[in-house]
């Protein structure tokens, strides 16, 4: 029995290693799948090397929920219109201009035709989720979320004859004379092997899963960060390409982090660990001190700022405290709040200095003034005479029971990536590589130099995944001809 499975595995392995694939796709998330589907539809023999096991296939893409899409009129579930300039301005705002305008506009313009393409390849959309109405016009939500999208693409790819290998970790991309030859892969249960191809698409995400790398880039504080997505994006391929001299974009010392529930798992906590209570709360650090204006802006916009703020606090942790009157004003949290009838009791349960918390909250309460409270808009209900001020939704924390949540920075992705041109082609020392393309998070830094725009990660992955797949397919057929000549 065992002997037979071993033989079968060997046979399966030799089927992969005995031939030269038209297109080798590294990674198994959204960008990889879009590339593989495009290349297979162009008639190529395509192999996907996904580092994760099947249950965890799809990288961070399986945690996503929507896709930001330009549309000149109503389109599928999207109402009204969202034109190129508005989209681009939104991007400029979050990136503070840290973007490549040509590539950004390319992504934005192409997003419109991507939506019908996605539908034609099995993705289903629905109106925006409850609690996210603000995105109803700009973002198309996946029915069932990102994992349903990933499943649909895997099924489409299978129907097109794409070979998928799970637990296949690519360790090295062999590039000689500006031309890719093969990848070195470690497949679970098999000896390390080489997979040869005429072209390659790199779509293996960022490096946020490699905590050591994060710590080198950001400092030791990064060891306390939580990683919101897959543990399999460790930047192995990115680093291998950098070591070989590939050109890069994006700030290597930066990552996109948001403030999430401090009790979230180290990896893969995904969307549910977000906490929306901050605007209605008082946030203290582990010494019981406030450190920033909790009411600066509506929460989705301030989400990322708080990731950085918490990262700068001792032990990279903060505590958000609300009282009974605010307990139902935000989306439910995945973990129940710590709860107590007294503020001191709450502080003790959270391991905070009770006297100091009392002092901080008393000072805050004393600075609150009368006024109208509107939870869904900037209501200008600000404190008076406390530092830092709270500029909106400032109501005294007085009504028991009191509730508390811990906050930690949760890393979404890293910015450092491969530099690509408008055809998703990777460059090395300023020269275009002949047959190497990149798509998704691994090249997103080209467009998203800093900040984040909800739904833009999937836009970049879909647009450049498709381009990379089409270009690689062209390259593979050209390659065949030139080899023959």
């Amino acid at each position: 029995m065992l002997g037979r499975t071993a033989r079968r595995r060997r046979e399966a392995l030799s089927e992969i290693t005995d031939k030269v694939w038209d297109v080798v796709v590294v990674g198994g998330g959204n960008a990889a799948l879009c590339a593989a589907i495009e290349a297979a539809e162009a008639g190529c023999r395509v192999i996907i090397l996904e580092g994760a096991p099947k249950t965890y296939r799809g990288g961070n893409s399986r945690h996503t929920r929507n896709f930001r899409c330009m549309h000149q009129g109503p389109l599928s579930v999207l109402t009204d219109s969202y034109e190129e300039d508005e989209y681009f301005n939104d991007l400029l705002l979050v990136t503070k201009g840290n973007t490549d305008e040509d590539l950004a506009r390319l992504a934005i313009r192409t997003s419109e035709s991507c939506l019908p393409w996605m539908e034609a390849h099995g993705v289903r959309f629905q109106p925006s989720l409850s609690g996210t109405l603000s995105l109803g016009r700009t973002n198309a939500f996946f029915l069932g979320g990102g994992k349903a999208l990933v499943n649909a693409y895997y099924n489409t790819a299978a129907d097109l004859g794409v070979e998928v290998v799970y637990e296949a970790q690519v360790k090295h991309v062999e590039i000689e004379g500006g031309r890719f030859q093969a990848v070195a892969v470690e497949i679970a249960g098999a000896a390390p092997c080489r997979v040869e191809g005429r072209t390659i698409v790199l779509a293996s995400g960022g490096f946020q899963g490699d905590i050591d790398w994060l710590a080198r880039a950001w400092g030791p504080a990064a060891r306390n960060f939580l990683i919101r997505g897959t543990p399999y994006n460790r930047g192995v391929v990115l680093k291998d390409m950098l070591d070989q001299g590939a050109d890069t974009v994006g700030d290597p010392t930066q990552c996109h982090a948001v403030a999430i529930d401090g009790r979230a798992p180290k990896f893969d906590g995904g969307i549910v660990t977000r906490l929306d209570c901050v605007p209605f709360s008082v946030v203290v650090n582990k010494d019981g001190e406030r450190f920033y204006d909790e009411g600066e802006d509506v929460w989705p916009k301030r989400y990322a700022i708080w990731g950085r703020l918490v990262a700068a606090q001792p032990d990279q942790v903060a505590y958000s405290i609300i009282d009974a009157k605010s307990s139902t004003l935000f989306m439910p949290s995945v973990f129940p709040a710590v709860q107590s009838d007294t503020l001191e009791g709450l502080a003790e349960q959270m391991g905070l200095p009770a006297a100091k918390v009392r002092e901080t909250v008393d000072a805050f309460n004393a600075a609150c003034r009368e006024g109208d409270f509107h939870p869904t808009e900037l209501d200008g209900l600000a404190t008076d005479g406390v530092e830092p001020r709270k500029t909106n939704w400032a109501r005294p924390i007085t009504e028991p029971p009191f509730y508390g949540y811990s906050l930690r920075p949760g890393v979404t992705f890293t910015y450092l990536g491969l530099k690509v041109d408008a055809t998703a082609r990777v460059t090395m020392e300023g020269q275009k590589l002949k047959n190497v393309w990149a798509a998704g998070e691994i090249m997103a830094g080209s467009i998203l130099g800093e900040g984040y725009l909800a739904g833009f990660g999937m836009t970049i992955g879909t647009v450049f995944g498709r381009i990379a797949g089409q270009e690689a397919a062209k390259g593979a057929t050209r390659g065949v001809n030139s080899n023959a000549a």
Partner: protein
Amino acid sequence: MPLDHTTQTPAATSQTDEARRQIEICNACRYCEGYCSVFPAITRQRAFADGDITQLANLCHNCRGCYYACQYTEPHEFAINLPKALAEARADSWERFAWPGFLAGPFHRSGVAIAVALIVGLAALFWAAQALKPAGGEGFYAVMSHTIMVSIFTPAFLLPLLAIFVGLRAYWREVGGQPVSLAHLKAAFADAVKLKNLSGGAAEGCNFEKGDRFTNVRRWHHQAVMYGFLLCFASTGSATLMHYLLDMPAPYGLFSLPKLLGIPGGLLLTLGGLGMAVLKTRGEKDLGAPALWGGEMAFVLLLSFTGASGLALYAATGTAAVSVLLPLHLGAVLTFFLLAPYSKMVHGFYRLAALVRDAQQKS
């Protein structure tokens, strides 16, 4: 405060608690909102009492869409398997509400119990046919007199209905149901006739027998069984009315109401039931309540057998085979009726009640 480990991992708790744990995660996530009525019902609340869990569990149609779409299935530590959690909480509620309660466990959990009940039912009917053989009578009634059939089947029909009623009343109390209006009923039936909750939200069906691919195969088979059953029921009902009100006793010709309803009904029931049984062997056991698998399988086979024996009986009209086929068919019908409150059959009643309750909560 525990910072470095999560509190959202399954512990050895009750089925209701496990379902609640998962539902709370879903309520923070909501990605599956478009699949069925369960998720919108979840998002209407923040906290879930036991009765809420019972309601959500009975609203779930086990389409399994939310399992395949979930980024938190095992080996993830959140260990989400909502179809299973709800199936188990649902089964738990049926056993709790069953009256008399001791009957529910064995029939839900064991196909063997259903098979034994079937054999007992058949034996009883054969015995009745033998021991109380009528002196005269035409057609079926030459095998078994009308009076005997009526005196066996009237209580065999009414008692289970009473038991189901008692169970439904307990359900309604637990989920906090309110007086039912016509609008609620209309909304519930509108969902039920189309099996809307098995549509996967995009009318592409469910994820039952083909893993993460969507198909409508199970939905169609379920519809066949449901409509087949209703047609058969209508056939018997029309025959009863014809017998008593119009003084038109059986046998009936091909173009009579009982046959026009009964033959397509029997075909749908037989084929739909067989289809459901085949699908059941292909579906992932662990996305339902595994302990109930045998009981459910026996139930669909019993349904199919009831339809098939009825058709065979009709085909054998006028032949000697009737003396065997009649008790066979009636024995199956008897077993089916008697087990209705304690087998998978109850799901239809509770599901409808859940849809009515959902309509109330939406309005």
